[in-house]
């Protein structure tokens, strides 16, 4: 193309004027601030995708959701009147490559921001580089690393809740409905330890008790020998096993207990993208799962959920419309959709015109609070905490019934809150 599509860099005075106009426009209800549309150059969003490597199953679905969201934003007129262009780079689910990808977004592709990372080790490996390059970095990882305060001013997680709030919010329902005496079974490394620590504390706060912690070595592929360690008085089993051995774990637990099992509660992460109706998983019938967003469309499905599924190409069972056996990573991938809509809202509130306005974008997002249930937020309402750069939202508890997951409880947002551990707004840019 011979046409120069590069946006003209505004000088400081025009930028301020434009900002003022944008802010005023944004304050008017129903007004779409197209005043910024002096350039038709696209807003370039660098999508750090787990295209290959161990995150590829997630990366494929994060990619589909990202494409669907970008299409919707463009159908709505883009951002500030400019089209949205997604520039995807594979990070190989590898932290070192993640940092390289972030650098490529900033220097080679001249992206306005980076977005979309799931795996925590990639976030942790990439975030410092994003900070150095002053590139806004919107992650979709669920890790507590953002809210824990160990990242930087440029890294935000506005579109998906963190694991600390998720785990903590399960305790009120578990203790009130399933039982007070819990045995936790978890893989013996950081992922499992976080569940152990967060949930044990949360149960104690609810007057319940975790009476046994059973840590399973990560290389274990047969679990029968661990089940006798479950105390007899156990009322609830909380499991967060992950990896290829999950189906074996469930099958062997079923064989161990037979028909007289305690209540069983797990995180859908164990079975994300796995068909709940898989043989060997019959034992899960009647058990409970945390879900980030209900995989199966519920009887009271919102119009937002319906629109989101249709846009992404996912059916009422959370599987691909093209192949009903191709189960999506439904509990997590909404984060890409919501984050892109938040980026649009942030850029429009900031009157974002180009990379010079990156700080304004961060400040605009930091100023956000309530995000109501809407087409932009089909997973549910959220409250963003600008100080911790972390969003908080409803969590869902579903029960396996007839080989599908039926929603039995949605937590309040209050259930998910915990004291701030950082104030990023006090950090310099």
């Amino acid at each position, binding site marked *: 193309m011979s046409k120069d599509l590069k946006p003209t860099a505004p000088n400081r005075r025009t930028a301020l004027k434009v900002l003022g106009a944008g802010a005023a426009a944004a304050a008017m209800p129903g007004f779409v601030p197209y005043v910024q549309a002096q350039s038709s150059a696209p807003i370039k969003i660098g999508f750090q995708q787990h295209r*290959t*490597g*161990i*995150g*590829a*199953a*997630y990366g*494929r679905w994060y990619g589909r959701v990202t494409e669907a969201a970008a299409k919707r934003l463009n159908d709505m007129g883009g951002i500030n009147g400019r089209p949205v262009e997604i*520039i*995807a780079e*594979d990070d*190989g*689910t*590898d*932290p*070192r*490559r993640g940092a390289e990808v972030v650098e490529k977004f900033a220097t080679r592709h001249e992206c306005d921001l980076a977005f979309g990372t799931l*795996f*925590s*080790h*990639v976030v*942790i490996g990439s975030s410092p580089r994003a900070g150095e390059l002053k590139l806004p970095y919107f992650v979709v*990882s*669920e*890790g*507590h*690393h953002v809210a*824990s305060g*160990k990242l930087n001013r440029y890294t935000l997680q506005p579109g998906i809740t963190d*694991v*600390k709030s998720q785990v903590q919010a399960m305790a009120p329902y578990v203790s009130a409905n399933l039982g007070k005496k819990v045995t936790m079974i978890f893989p013996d*490394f*950081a*992922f499992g330890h*976080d*569940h152990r620590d967060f949930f044990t504390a949360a149960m104690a706060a609810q007057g319940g008790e975790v009476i046994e912690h059973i840590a399973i070595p*990560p*290389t274990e*592929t047969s679990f029968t020998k661990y089940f006798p360690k479950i105390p007899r008085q156990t009322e609830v089993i909380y499991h967060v096993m*992950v*990896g*290829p*051995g999950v*189906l*074996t774990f469930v*099958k062997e637990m079923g064989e161990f207990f037979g028909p007289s099992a305690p209540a069983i509660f797990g995180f859908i992460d164990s079975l*994300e*993208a*796995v*068909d709940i109706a898989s*043989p*060997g998983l019959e034992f899960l019938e009647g058990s409970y799962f945390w879900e980030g967003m209900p995989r199966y469309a519920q009887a009271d499905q919102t119009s937002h959920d319906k629109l989101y599924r249709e846009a992404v*190409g996912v059916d009422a069972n959370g599987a*691909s419309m*093209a*192949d009903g*056996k*191709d*189960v999506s990573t439904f509990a*997590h991938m909404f984060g890409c959709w919501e984050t892109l809509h938040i980026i649009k809202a942030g850029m429009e509130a900031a009157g974002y015109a180009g990379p010079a306005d990156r700080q304004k974008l961060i400040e605009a997002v930091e100023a956000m609070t309530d995000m109501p249930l809407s087409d932009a937020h089909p997973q549910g309402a959220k409250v963003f905490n600008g100080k911790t750069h972390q969003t908080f939202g409803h969590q869902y508890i579903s029960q396996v019934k007839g080989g599908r997951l039926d929603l039995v409880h949605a937590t309040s947002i209050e259930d998910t809150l915990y004291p701030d551990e950082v104030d990023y707004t006090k950090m310099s840019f």
Partner: protein
Amino acid sequence: MSRHPRSVKPLAVLAAALGAVAWPVWPHVSEMGLVLLLPTEIYMAAGAWTVALTVLALALVPPRWAEAPFRPLTLARGPSGPGQQPGPWPSLATAALTLALIAAGLSGSRDPLGNPLPLAVWTVFWIGFVTLQGGVGDLWHWLNPWRGAAALIAGQGAPLLRLPERLGHAPAIAGLLIVAAFAFAHPAPDDPAVLAIAVALWWGASLAGCVVFGTEVWLARGEGLSALLRLFAGLAPWGGPGVRVALPGWRLLEAPAASTTAGLLALTTLSIGSFDGLNETFWWLALIGVNPLEFPGRSAIIGQTVAGLLSTTVLLWAVFAAAVWAGLRLARAEVTLATAFARLAPTVLPIAFGYHIAHYLTTALVNGQYVQAALADPLGTGWDPLGLGPVTVTTGFLNTPDSVETIFQVQAGAVVLGHVLSILLAHAAALRLIAEPRRAAISQIPLAAFMIAYTFLGLWLLAAPKGA
């Protein structure tokens, strides 16, 4: 979900300090989970018994029965002597395609599953073409991207230099290990730009090799991929002169005895395949100190992967040589180790070929869809000249127990068939080394034990839990 790889210390410390939680997930996790539910130990036992019974049967039947399947049936007569040399045009067309793919890698989509270069190299060539070559014969002889270009540059004159005979196939072994190290250990072998540079360097260096040492010599002994492809082509069931057909492998028996380095090259094709399976297993990850549930990324284990590839290769050379040596001792045969090794080592090629099919079957089924998607929209403009699209890639068949079991059975079948064929070939080769049938059979005992053990290994690699 944080992943706190022990081998990446700064990251591990940081992540541990964060107390962040990692979401460990794997490509095709449900497939692996379903495989773990299959009675894989029964498959392993059945496979090993099949190979063991083949050994027993061979010991009992008259030698001519053992050799019969490899005696070709002549379907059409033709002139003997060297076959027709290919003209330059197919090769020049492949060279042009290679250069176009390099350009696409540098300037096209950044998506390794959308850009035509990584799809062409890893899925179409490495999985598809290598398999085709083993089934059909030496297509690469015609289609390699060097013959035509080298002829244009150097003409038909004598090569500039002579590749020393004493080097044998050593340059090809080194080249093949470099390709394997790039594929297994480089952090981003399917990044389009990285791969474009790698392919350009490889193409250029190999072209230089052809010009300097002569195309025939360099492609046979210098360029690793061509050398591997030529070995696999020897497995095709038919061959000249004229049209002759027999059990795959007969042409390996008819070929003049290989050199020691040619034998090492054949074993290297096997070690590369085996290590490609091994390095994903929980067992290997635990060995190099990586928690398989929080794989730290390829860039964290480059050294371990290269070291593993090289040590697997050297170990296989040593174990195979030891088995040949022990067999000669047992049989009190008056054949030198070098002669026996050179004759017997190529008989592992069916194992390597069977494992190649088994190991890459799932990837072929998934990435084949990306190839179709790329062909359905070659310019990224929605223009679909072949009417193949739109393609929505699915991995749903890896979610279904029936299809996962079928895939596993095909994989296990390929592995077991490869071993049975290797046993038959090795026995026939031994009969050519040691005239007395009883002693020839005795000489095969250690090698048969090796192949039965390798059957277990091959099937275990398919069934073992994987974390990378």
